[in-house]
């Protein structure tokens, strides 16, 4: 996203708003006098700009259909449609704000206790709760139109945070010859210095020149408007950059994420008009916003005076600077200062109207009311150490700074700047340089030494009271936390889960310190003793679309070389794994009949095809197949199944001997790579075998010309002798078909005279078209997978994977003849030998149902009401005049003529076991 150079207009809840160039949505709304941006999660209290740095939930809106957009850091775009969230019927008049007055009936954790009984009402309660509490709603209408990307980048060093420390870390690493990627969530480099003109003046030319140095360095890749939200193993950093997720891999990671200003907890601290000083600064200097009227600034450090001066210079009337310290934190330079005082509460509903202030230890009832529009709080920063914690670095509580920071880093990580609790710019630069040096060396980890604390923090103890919100995201008050601790949830982790504090969109950035302080106070413990909750990704909320990415592999489909021909012919496609195959060309029954009575042509290019060459191939095939191949004559093809060491069928296909040392193997659709790997695995065990294995699945297309007229058609485009005498059933030949060199296998999966023709992929369309032309007079039809499945069922030919599963051995699957246990060794021999000595288990048998009712797969096979087996395939067979299929049944039910029942739509239908094929049992047509 790039900044606009002209003013833009967008709508907010239907009202037109104009934004200046590069201005954020929230900034434009502020300038337009819109100070209520949302309603709170639970009580529907009005909420306005608070942190203005993209942390808190107050400015979340739905923008162009995307819910929960942080409008304080989202630039306005022309025509954008911005809507408020979680309000009914409108943001201004939210009827559900009545809940704010009913808060006493909704104590912390109330939904755990009051909505479970009666149990059947829970779905009703849940539906109501979900409607009235929450954030934005996913726009299902337009949600699918957004594009998300996923990108993987590699870099020697990744620096997270483009502030003063991060800039120096990047420069140092670059100067040491390393490629650097600098990730900065703002639109500009410089971090919080961008919001602090006074510091910029102090730095002089160094500020701009340092930024320029980084931007012009060819070794440094700068990712602006990009947020690092996760650190994972092996220094993988996840970054959201617009609608793109970037996976950054690096040798060294420097975390210079700075810190967040922490809010004070006092009654009414969530009212619109109460803001953090850093947010005010940012709105003033980055968005050109003004804060007209009167302001009270509450502070315990010089930052409060800085913002007060800036506001005063911009025309805001500073009513008072309320300083927790007994002496001013810095030179007030004419500001009205009240030292040793604090804020008791604020007044106002839709916006602040007054602040009540008084002595820190004084009675709150004696507070002085100061009329004002704005209450600005500058109570110090905490570290943005979430990524460090995710990476596994140890965080400790630094009492002198009143914040958690890392003291022990993991290998490959360094931290620098404010994330260490260092706020002095020169110290930040030093730490940045050191971190860059260490990261460039590819090391890191170990203990970390930080610059000494600049000064101790003043007491932040504030008066307790109702509606003093610790967690703005989940509407959790300080009182709620005290109640939760009283309920027994005194551990900070269980307190979090029970009260949901820190579990909202800010993920603890605004509330972790406050909740730890409240927990400590309720338990009478120290901050250090209380500990902190676990930091987990994402550190910042991330749209699910970004996490999903574009995922192009989800759209992967495999197409045969004849795909376009099939489309032209009106094929209806089906998915077969990743393959798109013609299920039919509109009339599967007619296709079936064409093959039985005349001739048909099917695209079987999806078969896997392997070529094996070398003097040891026969020995190898003897080893990987349970049947024999050593004596297979040249020019013959044989069916085979591949078993694993357990004797389980993992694939089947044909094996043809084309020359003395050249063999051609086919596998099932989708298993070419699996069989290829399986063969290579076993080949690796015998390096002495002289074998060259080539997977030619992609290089070779295949088609099956089948039917009683197939020979007649093939002869029209083929010079070879195709007579039964010259090319009998199970013959394999190499000859030209339509002028193209081909491998012909005379096999009959569909139970008719047929030829499986393998040709180079790039010439497949030519051969197919020639065959279709040659067969026109014979009424040739292309046929699809549906007709093929009906045809093969007539012959009880099994489909590996369809009729077999992870427990099927050839002994059970009707293929005991294929297992040659008298061979000295082959894969699966021992298991099959043991199985052959046992009582047979389930058997794959054919069955016939009277009528046309077809049981879906896998229908149940029952005998006397007992479940005995399952149907694996079933179709209506015109030649059998009945529904036929294959089913697994116990051995005792597998004899010919045995009656069983098959459950179809809850009804039991009688079926009869039939072991011989339903069509051409002698194979006369195959061999004709």
């Amino acid at each position, binding site marked *: 996203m790039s900044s606009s150079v002209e003013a833009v207009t967008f709508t907010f809840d239907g009202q037109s708003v104009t934004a200046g160039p590069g201005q954020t949505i929230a900034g434009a709304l502020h300038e337009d006098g819109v100070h209520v941006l949302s309603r709170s999660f639970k009580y529907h209290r009005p909420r306005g700009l608070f942190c203005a740095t993209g942390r808190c939930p107050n400015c979340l809106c739905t923008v162009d259909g995307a819910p929960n957009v942080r409008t304080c850091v989202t630039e306005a775009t022309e025509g954008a449609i911005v809507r408020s969230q979680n309000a009914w019927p409108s943001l201004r008049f939210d009827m559900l704000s009545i809940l704010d007055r009913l808060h006493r009936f909704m104590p912390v954790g109330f939904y755990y206790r009051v909505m479970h009984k009666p149990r059947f009402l829970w779905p009703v309660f849940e539906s109501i709760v979900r409607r009235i509490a929450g954030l934005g709603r996913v726009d299902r209408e337009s949600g699918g139109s957004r594009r998300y990307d996923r990108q993987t980048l590699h870099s020697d060093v990744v620096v997270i945070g483009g502030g003063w420390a991060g800039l120096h870390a990047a420069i140092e690493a670059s100067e040491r010859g390393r490629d650097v990627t600098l990730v900065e969530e703002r639109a500009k480099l410089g971090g919080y210095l961008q919001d602090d003109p006074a510091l910029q003046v102090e730095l002089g030319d160094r500020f701009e020149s340092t930024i320029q140095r980084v931007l012009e360095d060819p070794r440094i890749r700068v990712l602006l408007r990009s947020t690092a939200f996760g650190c994972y193993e092996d220094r993988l950093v996840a970054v959201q950059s617009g609608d793109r997720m970037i996976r950054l891999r690096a040798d060294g990671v420097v975390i210079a994420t700075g810190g967040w200003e922490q809010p004070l907890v006092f009654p009414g601290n969530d009212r619109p008009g109460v803001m953090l000083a850093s947010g005010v600064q940012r709105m003033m200097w980055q968005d050109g916003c003004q804060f007209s009227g009167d302001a009270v600034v509450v502070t315990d450090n010089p930052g409060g005076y800085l913002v007060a001066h800036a506001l005063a210079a911009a025309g805001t009337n500073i009513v008072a600077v309320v300083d927790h310290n007994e002496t001013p934190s810095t030179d007030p330079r004419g500001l009205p200062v009240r030292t040793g005082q604090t804020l008791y509460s604020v007044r106002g509903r839709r916006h602040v109207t007054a602040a009540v202030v008084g002595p820190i230890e004084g009675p709150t009832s004696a507070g002085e009311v100061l009329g004002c529009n704005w209450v600005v709080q500058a109570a110090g920063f905490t570290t943005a150490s979430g990524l460090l914690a995710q990476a596994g670095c140890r965080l400790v509580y630094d009492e002198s700074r009143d914040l958690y920071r890392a003291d022990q880093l993991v290998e490959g990580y360094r931290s620098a700047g404010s994330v260490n609790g260092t706020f002095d710019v020169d110290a930040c630069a030093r730490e940045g340089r050191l971190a860059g040096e260490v990261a460039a060396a590819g090391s890191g980890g170990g203990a970390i030494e930080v610059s000494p604390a600049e000064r101790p923090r003043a007491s932040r103890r504030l008066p307790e009271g109702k509606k003093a919100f610790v967690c703005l995201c989940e509407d959790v008050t300080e009182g709620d936390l005290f109640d939760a601790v009283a309920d027994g949830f005194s551990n900070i982790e269980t307190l979090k889960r029970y009260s949901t504090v820190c579990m909202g969109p800010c993920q603890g950035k605004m509330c972790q310190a406050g909740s730890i302080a409240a927990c400590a106070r309720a338990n009478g413990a120290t901050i250090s003793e209380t500990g902190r909750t676990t930091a987990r990704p994402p550190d910042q909320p991330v749209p699910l679309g970004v996490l999903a990415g574009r995922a192009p592999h989800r*759209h992967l*489909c495999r197409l*045969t070389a004849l795909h376009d021909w099939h489309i032209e012919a009106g094929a209806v496609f089906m998915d077969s794994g990743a393959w798109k195959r013609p299920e039919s060309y509109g009339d599967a029954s007619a296709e079936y009949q064409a093959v039985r009575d005349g001739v048909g042509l099917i695209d079987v290019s999806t078969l896997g095809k392997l070529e094996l060459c070398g003097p040891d191939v026969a020995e190898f095939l003897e080893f990987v197949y349970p049947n024999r191949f050593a004596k297979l004559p040249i020019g013959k093809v044989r069916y085979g199944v591949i078993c694993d060491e357990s004797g389980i069928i993992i694939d089947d296909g044909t094996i043809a001997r084309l020359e003395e040392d050249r063999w051609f193997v086919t596998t099932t659709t989708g298993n070419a790579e699996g069989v290829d790997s399986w063969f290579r695995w076993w080949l690796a065990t015998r390096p002495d075998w002289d074998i060259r294995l080539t997977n030619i699945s992609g*290089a070779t297309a295949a088609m099956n010309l089948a039917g009683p007229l197939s020979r007649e058609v093939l002869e029209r485009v083929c010079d070879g002798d195709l007579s039964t005498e010259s090319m009998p059933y199970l013959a394999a030949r190499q000859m030209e078909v339509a002028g193209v060199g081909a491998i012909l296998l005379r096999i009959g999966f569909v139970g008719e005279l047929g030829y499986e023709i393998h040709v180079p992929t790039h010439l497949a*369309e030519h051969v197919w078209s*020639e065959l279709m032309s040659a067969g026109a007079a014979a009424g040739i039809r292309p046929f699809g997978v549906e007709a093929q499945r009906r045809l093969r069922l007539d012959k009880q030919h099994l489909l590996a994977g369809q009729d077999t599963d992870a427990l099927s051995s050839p002994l059970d699957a009707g293929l005991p003849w294929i297992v040659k246990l008298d061979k000295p060794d082959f894969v699966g021999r021992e298991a099959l030998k043991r199985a052959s000595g046992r009582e047979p288990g389930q058997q794959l048998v054919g069955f016939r149902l009277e009528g046309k009712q077809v049981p879906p797969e896998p229908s149940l096979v029952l005998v006397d009401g007992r479940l005995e087996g399952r149907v694996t395939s079933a179709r209506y067979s015109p030649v059998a005049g009945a529904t036929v299929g294959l089913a697994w049944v116990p051995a005792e039910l597998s004899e010919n003529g045995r009656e069983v029942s098959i459950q179809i739509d809850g009804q039991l239908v009688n079926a009869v076991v039939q072991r011989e094929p339903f069509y051409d049992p002698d194979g006369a047509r195959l061999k004709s």
Partner: protein
Amino acid sequence: MISSPSPPLARGPLVAWHRHAGGQLETVGGWEICTSHPETAGLVLAEHNVVLDWSHRAVIELGGPRTGDLVKGLVGSDVAVGRMGAGRAGIVCRLTPGRAIVFGNVGPQVLDDTAAVDVTGGWATIVLAGPDAINILSLLTSADLRTRSMPVAAIRQGPIAGINTLLCHFAGHWELHACPDSVLSLWEALLDAGDAYRLQVVGAERLGDVVTVGGGGGDDDGGEADR
């Protein structure tokens, strides 16, 4: 043979895509190929990201224990695993000690060898070139494509857009070789990812420009050469 078939016409897996996209199709050397796309006919290649379909290449696979000897014969020296070498016949990609792919027309002395199989049509080739080529690829693969990890003349087999692809790094371009059955998905994924970088399709008549636009010099390691 009763009927007289028409002369065989070879087609790559992307011909239909080119036809639908308005590409100019011509028959060259027995192949129907897309020679040009009218809208990119005059494109200045050095300034643009372009993609080109080069599926009409002869491809030979070498396998077995004699692979090394054949590679030496073709290139003049051995080629390490994971690298490619150039010979008069074409480019030799060494996948494993016992497996190599040769893109180009080898002589009959190699084709007649039992260690060689003609797999023309079994590898579809996409040529990707331009200043943002690596960025486009980074949207589709998690592989480290920096020169340090994958220098010129390096090859790598792995998923790109979820499709098993042999990726070859030349001095001025990348070549992506994939199985023809899934190359349409790869092609469309590349175009989709390249949309943000204004990736454009050029016809085969620009092949000579594309593969030389970045310089056809040798590998920075010497020995194993580019083109």
